[in-house]
């Protein structure tokens, strides 16, 4: 176990984590996330970001290496340890992974530790669930009894966030929290992650493609490429970095964003009723 010069033990520590499926996905990842820190892991698709996140709570077991949470090994202390560690960690899935057959109330209730749930009076459970929904800007009276299928994509993501924070975990792991959302909903979710971190001092790891969001919300960012961490530093260090991979990644994202913007503008021009060159509707 490592500790910083200040003697603080990392909240999450990946030590030489290896994982291979058909090809190597993680090849010796070492990373320490400090208590209360928000760390974003960036990288292109298929670089192993989600795999790294899933090794944190044993959803994917590394072939080699170890993950420690608050100094305790996830893999070397037996299944009981993993069960115990999972109580303090919550995972926000890419598409929320809400249970289809359960209402929003029941879904969020699942975020409470089963033993704590038995001990709590019904009224307090309801209060906690309502509060967690309010914390993600959802009106409990409107959504509590709805099924996930009755919610929009953005609302489902926010219910997923509410489920993650209702049990007041020490660690929240976000797997592509803004994937599939429109820019407005994506910004809302990014701001919720920031406000949750500020309010609860929770330690967070955010796996994302969204560079701007990551640089805004994170204390540090890491860049994963071909199964290895190529960069770890503050958002400012990332912006100033002259590392070719960092620059290429940032440029690629910037170029893609510019292309999308141009495409959107062209589509606006082509809309019936607009004054663009392709606007047959306006001339008819």
């Amino acid at each position, binding site marked *: 176990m490592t500790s910083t010069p200040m003697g603080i033990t990392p909240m999450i520590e990946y030590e030489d984590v290896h994982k291979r499926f058909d090809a190597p996905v993680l090849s010796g990842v070492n990373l320490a996330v400090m208590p209360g820190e928000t760390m974003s892991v960036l990288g292109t698709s298929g670089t192993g970001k989600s795999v790294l996140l*899933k090794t944190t*709570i*044993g*959803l994917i077991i590394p072939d080699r290496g170890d993950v420690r949470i608050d100094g305790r090994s996830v893999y070397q202390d037996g299944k009981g340890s993993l*069960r115990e560690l*999972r*109580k303090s*960690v*919550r*995972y926000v*899935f*890419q*598409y929320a*992974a*809400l*249970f*289809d057959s359960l209402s929003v109330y029941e879904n969020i209730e*699942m*975020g409470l*530790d*089963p033993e704590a749930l038995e001990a709590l009076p019904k009224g307090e459970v309801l209060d906690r669930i309502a509060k967690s929904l309010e914390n993600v800007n959802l009106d409990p009276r409107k959504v509590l009894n709805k099924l996930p299928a009755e919610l929009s994509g953005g609302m489902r993501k926010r219910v997923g966030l509410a*489920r993650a924070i209702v049990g007041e975990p020490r660690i929240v792991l976000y797997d592509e929290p803004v994937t599939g959302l429109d820019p407005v909903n994506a910004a809302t979710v990014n701001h919720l992650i920031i406000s949750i971190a500020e309010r609860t001092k929770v330690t967070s790891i955010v796996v994302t493609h969204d560079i701007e969001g990551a640089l805004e919300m994170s204390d540090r960012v890491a860049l994963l490429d071909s199964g290895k961490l190529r960069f770890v530093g503050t958002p400012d260090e990332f912006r100033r970095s002259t590392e070719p991979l960092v620059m290429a990644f940032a440029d690629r994202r910037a170029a893609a964003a510019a292309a999308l913007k141009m495409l959107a503008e062209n589509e606006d021009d082509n809309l019936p009723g607009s004054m663009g060159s392709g606007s047959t509707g306006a001339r008819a």
Partner: protein
Amino acid sequence: MFMGFARHIGEMSHLTANIALSLVQGKVSLKSIFAQCYEQGIGSLPLVLVTAVLSGIVTSQQGGYQFTSSIPLYILGSVVSSSVVLELGPVMTAFVLIGRVGARITAEFGTMAVSEQIDALHSLGRDPVPYLAAPRVIAGMIVTPILVGVANAVGVLTGLVSARATMGLGPEAFLYGARLYWHSWDLFYSLSKAFVFGFMIPVISVHMGLRTHGGAEGVGRNTTTSVVFMIITVLVVDATFPPLFLN
């Protein structure tokens, strides 16, 4: 291929052991078991009744056709009751359950697996075995013998009615023939077979559902494979029972 088969057997044995363990440890919710009993039992009853009625009619008709002018017609009572109780009741009910319950479980669990709901359960400290798998398997073992019992009774009764309507064989003669070669063991044999089917169908469907990957295509593929496995298993178990228990 052999390695793949062995891996399936190993994983299903592991699943069965975990279900038994969670049951012994009292981790399985009675409410969930009742809900599954209702879903599998009451939900399947109409289709089971339809197959039972048709099985009874067909056996009676074909038996009557073969016996005409050669064997005393009251023997038809024995043929119908033995065919329905020993074979058609359990097997036809099992096929109904494969289509209605087994395929549904595999598709449901498969969808949960590909949409990360199974991972979500793990991450929330809930083990899918006592929470999802055990209630379905236990319910299967409870309701299948009951459904087979109902299918047996309905099959024999419709055989009797059909014999009366088309061949003029009275109920007394039919029941006389049925009693003539009746062994109480036959009913025990039939319900035991049902119990094994009621265990195998949900275990295979749960196992196949939980190991699904590859999106919607994976769900479709695994559901088909699961149905094939269940049909073959039912037929193999059915073929294994007579040499073991009827000699």
